[in-house]
């Protein structure tokens, strides 16, 4: 049997490296009808902000070849409802939770982190993922993740609000000229790990109506089609760690994983854990299926420990 366990920081040993991806699994109840959400390494919740949010108008999605485009607009109940209802439920079923937090300003991020920390079910939390792909109201809506300084500020403030044994993961956007620069800024600011990648900025025109198909005009591109971009981003950042340009921290890989083989691709490029996002819409039990497939592949290749496969493709 392959040892699948992995420690992403703070001494929280996860039984395996498979996770849901933020915004692709809601907050647990829905997928629990298809598989036991405590069977995967960690459950990543939908990015939550301070206040309840309606999200954007519809249509909110467009299907594209091997991908989809979404503009949900971070619809959610707000952090108060999240800690009162969603987190306790996840705790009740034994899930290890990686809440994803968001904000329109660095102080909003800090407030959300502080509220989370003060909540009664905080014990279920094994880390916090910071979704920095949000428009920064203080900077004409430029997303935090496109600017190393803005990213660093958010991470530093969030880091301050949380106990040391709760690792903070900065979730990076691929829509930048040099992702290693953003990664370096986040790690320097206190990120204990990185999640890569968020969606790519894309757009679809409805050619029947000759206007943008999404209510939000542009949207986020996700799914198997973007996997090569995720692999590249993980590879580049991991390479920068090998070269000492960024301190070595764990990377959570996400982007277009459909099968165990796909997961292994991200792992070999440098990911210590894997999230399955859009593919859940195709197969609601994809996270446990991918886990099983990954495990079988590692076994067939003679690995004793999952962690031995992390980043092996470097230097070959």
């Amino acid at each position, binding site marked *: 049997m392959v040892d699948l366990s992995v420690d992403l920081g703070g001494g929280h040993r996860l039984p395996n490296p498979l996770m849901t991806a933020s*915004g*692709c*699994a*809601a907050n647990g*109840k*829905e*997928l629990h*009808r*298809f598989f036991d959400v405590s069977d995967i390494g960690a459950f990543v919740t*939908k990015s939550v*902000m301070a*206040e*309840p*949010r*309606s*999200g*954007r*108008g*519809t*249509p*909110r*999605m467009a*299907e594209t*070849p*091997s*991908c*989809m485009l*979404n503009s*949900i607009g971070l*619809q*959610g109940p*707000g952090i108060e409802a999240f800690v009162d209802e969603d987190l306790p439920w996840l705790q009740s079923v034994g899930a290890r939770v990686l809440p994803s937090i968001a904000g*329109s300003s660095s102080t909003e991020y800090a407030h959300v982190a502080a509220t989370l920390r003060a909540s009664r079910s905080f014990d279920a939390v094994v880390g916090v993922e910071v979704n920095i792909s949000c428009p920064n*109201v203080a900077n004409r809506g430029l997303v935090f993740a496109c600017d190393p300084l803005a990213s660093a500020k958010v991470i530093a403030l969030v880091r301050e609000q949380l106990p040391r044994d709760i690792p903070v993961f900065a979730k990076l956007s691929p829509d930048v000229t040099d992702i290693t620069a953003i990664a370096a800024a986040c790690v320097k600011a206190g990120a204990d790990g990185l999640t890569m990648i968020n969606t790519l900025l894309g757009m679809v025109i*409805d050619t029947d*109506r000759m206007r943008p198909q999404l*209510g939000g005009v542009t949207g986020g591109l996700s*799914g*198997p089609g973007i996997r090569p971009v995720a692999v590249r981003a993980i590879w580049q950042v991991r390479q920068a760690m090998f070269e000492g340009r960024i301190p070595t921290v764990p990377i959570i890989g996400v982007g277009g994983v459909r099968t165990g083989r796909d997961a292994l691709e991200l792992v070999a490029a440098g990911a210590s854990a894997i999230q399955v996002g*859009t*593919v*859940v*819409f*195709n*197969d*609601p*039990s994809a996270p446990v299926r991918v886990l099983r497939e990954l495990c079988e592949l590692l076994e067939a290749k003679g690995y004793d420990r999952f962690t031995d496969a992390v980043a092996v493709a470097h230097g070959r």
Partner: protein
Amino acid sequence: MRARVTQEVAEVIATRRVGAYQHITLVAPGVAELARPGQFVALGVGGESSGTLLRRSFSIHRVSPSGTYGGTVEIVVSAVGAGTRWIVERVPHDTIDVVGPLGKAFPLPTDPVACVLVGGGYGSAPLFWLAGELRERGCHVEMVLGAAREDRLFGVVEARRSCDGVTVTTDDGSAGQQGWVSDVLPDVIDRTKAAVVYGCGPMGMLEAITRVAQAHDAVAQVAVEESMACGVGVCMTCVMPVVGSDGRTRMVRSCVEGPVFRGDRVRWDAFDGGHARVPDDAVGAPKVGGH
């Protein structure tokens, strides 16, 4: 507890053309056992190398919980795009991946009141099963079927068999009365003194049904059809503005809190040409100058 749901690889055992539609029978015992009228199934499209990631949703036309092949689920498909074309091209013994049953079923009245069931195009597909359940409860059931032309009507013969009265309309007069279902609906409600109007069809029709029902003191229960990425409640793409029991509007998921909604709860004012705005008074609506 949420309703139970299953995922199974279903074999196509029958498929036949009915007017402009394809009537497909799938062996899906798990779905067949759990489903109620008004619920839907989500079908995977394409094989192993498919570039079509998202499932396609179809109202359940009928289920047969057991039989020669095990439980079956029937759907009625209109081929409009690449996904539905792939589905209607399946031949017996091909398999299709099915998730279901999904969504909320039509609520049934506790008393044996009169009901009118209104179906637009293939929207009638889930109504025959509903009609049967209502009549079992002693309800007087009439049906109104409308479509653009005769070949886009579904189930007129079955309607006559399973209901106490049937009215047909077509836009071009090629069958039944020329006009829209909303033209004939007032009379049918008045004549039958219907307490509930069930509707399934395009959004514009559902809005009209709701308006007519309200004007005639009936409750409208409508099954909507929103673009859905997941169908299981995790993606938030299928939302629409609906008024809750607390009187506040929220963007609710039509795949889990619908597809059946009380017509008077839907914020029809927010819909416009395929888009739905977030009403300004919705919970968490964007405030002027950002959130």
